[in-house]
Structures are given as structure tokens and as C-alpha cells.
């Protein structure tokens, strides 16, 4: 069986890729949703055969696997998922498809934000979240993480420096900076973040610091599954990280210009906590964290009161949820719809957010335009 598959693959590879440098066919990789798929594509490039389960504009919270998905999973060598209970349907799928390849959890090592923190107190959210899990903390961790793996000192050093530089010219005026002394306190807690389930906000890709951890995890996972192409994966990661750093500087510059009293964003689905934490914004949403829950009159009323009292000028709609409720809130408060944000899914190729980098840039631009005007 194995030899037949190998034979077939060699024949296929020879037929379709005559100039290929690989000894065997590209490894089969499955990513769970479009944003992750885009990152995996950036790292794996042509050396992998990528299948993304939940495509552009799809809602991964409530995805229902198709037989094709099960087939892709059962044939996959590597399955890359977000983790933090984001893909609730995945466990059943891997069991049903008897997946026996390598499982890569992209959020491994991320400083996850617990749910409860947000639900308790809306008003203190921004300061609170920022104090507890400062950006520097995440980048320190990233730094340690890379060093530990001994594959890339230069990148980690470089990033580390730049992060500090970036912090000097933003955030400090508007947010209390407890970054440095919090680092020690939280270093010991990293362990429990990865494998506790359902207690943490899974939308970790909304911060670029986290995206760097994502690509680290993806590159390492792919390299372990396909050691022959490891150098390709790490080279690709290098260039992707460079793009992430450029983007971060760009977004920092955009967010810098926002005045302190205009840093509250209202959106239809609470998926931007990591973004909020990274840039000192507050996000409010009438619907809980997941698109599965239905809004209550109390939440909507609370949000409207807040919009009125704080004279928030713009609310944002999202690409994957029903926006009728946001339109009603905008109507009632006189706030304008500031634009569409992409939270859990990329747009299709023609849209403004067809890759992760474009998505982050587009969201930041949309927010800074609406809040800055």
C-alpha cells in the first residue's frame, strides 16, 4: 500500500513538476480556516499541498464539516489548527476521519486572554487588559521562545529591539505602562494558557505579536513533518516575519494619531480583544464572544447608553455576522457605520482583506479613519 502510494506520487510528481527539486510529493497540510491557511501558505509555499477547511467569509465557530473536509483531514500529513477551543468541531472530525498525522496548534505559547476578565467590567477593560498582559510581555516571550529553539537568534534580537522602539513612541501617553514589571509575574503562568479549554479568547491572530508566534509554530511543525524542506520553511518564515514587522510599524503609526478619548470601538462580535490589547483600544460588542450566542436586550441597551454617554462616533460591522442589529444601534445613537472589519475570516481574492497582512492593515486603517475623523 505504502509503496504503491509512493510509486504513484513519484510518477505524479515527475509528470506535473518535471523541474522539481523535492525527492517526493509535497506533504499534505490542512489548515482549519482562511487566516491560518494564509499564514501556512506563506510559510509552506510550493513545498506543501494546502487545504483550507473554512474558506473566505466563512464562520469557523459554526462550521459543519463536509465529506471533502473529512477526506482532506484523513489524507493530511499535518493538521494546523488555531486551538483555544476555536474549532469546536475539529475533534470529532479528526476522530471520524482517523487522522494520524502531526497536529500543530498555532496558539501554542501564546499569552491567551481569559474570557472572564472582559465580562466582569466593561469600563475598565482597556487598562485592565493592558496592565495584565502588556505587549512587551508577549514579545519577551517570543524572544525566549525563539532562543530556546536555537534556530534564529538574529530575528529574535531584531524584533525585540524594534518592539521596544515602537513602544517608546506610542501607547505611553494613553496607557499606563506596567509592561516591564508585569513580565516577571506572568512568566510562570504561561504553561496553563496553552491547554486549558474554553476559558480563553481564541481570536489570538488579531495581534501581530501573536502572529509571529503562529508562524514560528507553523514553521516548526512543517519542518518536523518534512525535514528535507526545513530550510525553505525557515527562509519563508524570515521573509514573512519581516513583512509582519513592517506592518506592525505601519499600524503603530496609524494608531498613534488617535486621541485618548477616541479609543472605543463598537462592533458586532467580540473578536478584537488581542487587537485592543496591542493598540490600547477598547472594543464593545452587543453579542457575546461567539457568533453562536443571541444578543439580549440588556446588552444592547447597555451598549446604546455607553455610545450616547461617551459620544462614540462610529460603529463597525463585521464580514461574518448579521449586521442588522448594528445598523439599528447606529440608527438609534446617531453614530455612523464606520466600515466593515474582518475578524475570523479573510475576504475572497477580490476583497480588501484577501491575506492576513492585508486584513490587519485594512482593519487598522478602517478603525483609525473612522475614529480619527
Amino acid at each position, binding site marked *: 500500500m505504502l509503496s504503491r502510494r509512493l510509486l504513484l506520487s513519484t510518477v505524479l510528481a515527475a509528470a506535473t513538476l518535471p523541474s522539481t527539486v523535492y525527492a517526493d510529493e509535497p506533504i499534505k497540510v490542512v489548515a482549519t480556516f482562511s487566516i491560518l491557511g494564509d499564514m501556512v501558505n506563506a510559510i509552506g509555499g510550493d513545498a506543501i499541498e494546502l487545504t483550507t477547511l473554512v474558506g473566505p467569509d466563512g464562520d469557523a465557530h459554526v462550521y459543519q464539516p463536509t465529506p471533502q473536509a473529512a477526506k482532506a483531514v484523513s489524507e493530511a500529513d499535518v493538521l494546523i489548527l488555531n486551538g483555544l477551543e476555536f474549532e469546536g468541531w475539529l475533534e470529532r472530525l479528526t476522530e471520524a476521519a482517523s487522522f494520524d498525522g502531526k497536529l500543530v496548534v498555532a496558539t501554542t505559547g501564546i499569552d491567551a486572554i481569559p474570557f472572564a476578565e472582559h465580562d466582569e467590567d466593561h469600563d475598565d477593560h482597556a487598562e485592565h487588559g493592558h496592565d495584565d498582559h502588556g505587549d512587551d510581555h508577549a514579545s519577551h516571550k517570543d524572544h525566549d521562545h525563539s532562543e530556546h529553539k536555537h534556530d534564529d537568534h538574529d530575528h529574535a534580537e531584531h524584533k525585540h529591539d524594534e518592539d521596544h522602539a515602537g513602544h517608546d513612541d506610542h501607547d505611553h501617553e494613553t496607557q499606563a505602562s506596567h509592561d516591564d514589571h508585569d513580565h516577571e509575574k506572568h512568566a510562570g503562568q504561561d504553561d496553563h494558557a496553552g491547554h486549558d479549554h474554553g476559558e480563553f479568547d481564541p481570536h489570538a491572530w488579531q495581534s501581530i505579536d501573536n502572529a509571529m508566534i503562529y508562524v514560528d509554530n507553523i514553521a516548526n511543525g512543517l519542518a518536523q513533518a518534512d525535514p528535507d524542506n526545513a530550510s525553505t520553511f525557515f527562509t519563508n518564515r524570515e521573509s514573512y516575519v519581516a513583512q509582519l514587522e513592517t506592518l506592525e510599524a505601519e499600524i503603530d503609526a496609524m494608531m498613534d494619531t488617535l486621541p485618548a478619548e477616541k479609543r472605543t470601538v463598537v462592533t458586532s462580535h467580540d473578536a478584537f480583544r488581542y487587537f485592543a490589547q496591542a493598540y490600547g483600544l477598547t472594543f464593545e460588542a452587543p453579542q457575546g464572544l461567539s457568533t453562536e450566542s443571541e444578543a*439580549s436586550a440588556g446588552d444592547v441597551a447597555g451598549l446604546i447608553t455607553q455610545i450616547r454617554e461617551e459620544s462614540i462616533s462610529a460603529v463597525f460591522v463585521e464580514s*461574518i455576522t448579521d449586521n*442588522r442589529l448594528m445598523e*439599528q444601534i447606529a440608527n438609534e445613537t446617531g453614530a455612523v457605520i464606520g466600515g466593515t472589519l474582518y475578524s475570523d475570516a479573510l475576504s475572497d481574492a477580490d476583497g480588501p482583506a484577501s491575506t492576513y497582512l492585508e486584513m490587519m492593515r485594512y482593519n487598522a486603517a478602517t478603525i483609525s479613519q473612522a475614529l480619527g475623523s
Partner: protein
Amino acid sequence: MIWELIIEPFASFGFMRRALLGCVAIAIGATPVGVFLMLRRMSLTGDAMAHAILPGAAVGFLISGLSLGAMTIGGLIAGMLVALASGFVSRMTALKEDASLAAFYLISLALGVLIVSTRGSNVDLMHVLFGTVLALDNAALILLCSIASLSILTLAILFRPLVLECADPQFLRSVSKLSAVTHLTFLCLVVMNLVAGFHALGTLMAVGIMILPAAAARFWSASIGGLLGIAMLVAILSSITGLLLSYHHSLPSGPAIILVAGIAYALSVVFGPVGGLVAQNLPRRRLET
């Protein structure tokens, strides 16, 4: 105290007033239909029809996105087709109404799921179709009120044949040619009101506001007029209470409204003077009868 509890939420928030208006419209339109469904022992038909509507609305959504018009028309077409086809089969063949309705709504449901799947969109259709009463815009409110008005007018015109068909369908069939027309028009009313309901409460919750108040009213009155009045009253009071609970305790509004109606039903079962649990088992009454 009363101001804060009951009046203030509606006075200071437009969306609460809209939700209230939407609920009252549904209560006026759908509950009389529910009463007749109950009297004709067709309470479960509402549920079946709700499933039949779902795929039509989904197809409407896939064709033109989140458009009120397309989803309404899609739902109406799917519902009417199922109602007419099952009515036709049950009247023209040996198969009974319940079996033919079940057959057609299952076909409709499967067809809808198939169409949705082939289009491959993963936007959660159930979520889209489970409209929320808090997000009613002007177009949706106009639609709800129009359907309620049309429904009440049609019921007024068909009142006599409908009551007769509830009491003795065989007799109606023998004295009047209107029997089939009455039946089909009534099924159309069911479909229309369910479509209205899914904009406000979601497809399945819409059946709740149709049937539960009717079932509760059954324990308070034996006359048809009484049933209709009490059912509407129960529906409106449940809507107000449900909305206020949703407001004060941050509960999802649709289920809150239906659960309040459910509590009203449970209380009616126990304490209702007409055939309620207590009334039927009181020793005094047993002696009298």
C-alpha cells in the same frame, strides 16, 4: 419603581419600542391562527410548516443576501408549495393530511439543505434565519404589521367556515364547496405568519408564539371568542414580560419571550378554570357533575 421596571426601558430605547411593536403585531396576527390550528388538532402542523419555510428563506438569502424581500418571498413560496401540495395529496388520495404534510416538508427541508451546501457558503444560515426581535428595521416592521392586518382580515372573512370546519369538517364539506378553499387559505395564513415570525423571533421560535398562547387560552375559555381574545392577551403579555426580562437580566430576547409564554401555559394547565388540573380534580366539582 414601576417606572424603572416597566416603562423606562421602552421610553428610553427605540429598539425596545420596535421590538414591542413587532411582538404585538405577531401576537395579533399569529395567535388567532394558532387557536384555529389547536382547535383543528393541527398544532404540530405549525412546526412542520416552519421547517418547510426554512429552506425557502435560505435560498432567498443565497440569491440576494440578507434581503428582507428575497427571504420573505422565498419562505412564502416554499411554505405555500408544501401547504398546497400536501393539501392536494390529502384531499385527492388515500394518504392522510399529517403523513402527506410530513412527506412534503421533509422533501422541502432536504432540498433546502442541499442547495445551501452546494453553494458552499459557511456563513451561519441558522443564525441569519434566527432573526432577532432587537434588530427590526422599518421595512421589517411594515412587513410584520401588514401580515398581521392581512391575517386578521382574512380570518374575519373566513370565520364561519373555519369554525364550522373545526367543529364538523364532514358537514362543511357536504354543504359547501368552500371547504377546500377555506382549508388552503388557512394554510397560507399559517405560512404567512410563520414568515413574519421568523423575522422577529427566528423560524422555530415563531411557532412558539403561535401555539403556546392558544394552548394556554384553552384552559380559560370555552367559547371561540374568548379563546381568541385570551390567546392574544397571553401573547402580548408574554412578549412584554419576555422583553423586560431580556432587558433587566441580559437574557436572549427570543427564547425569553417564548419561555414566558411557556410559563403562562404551565400555570394555565394547573389553575385554569376550564379543564385545568385543579378545577377538574376539586371534590366540589365532582359532586356537582
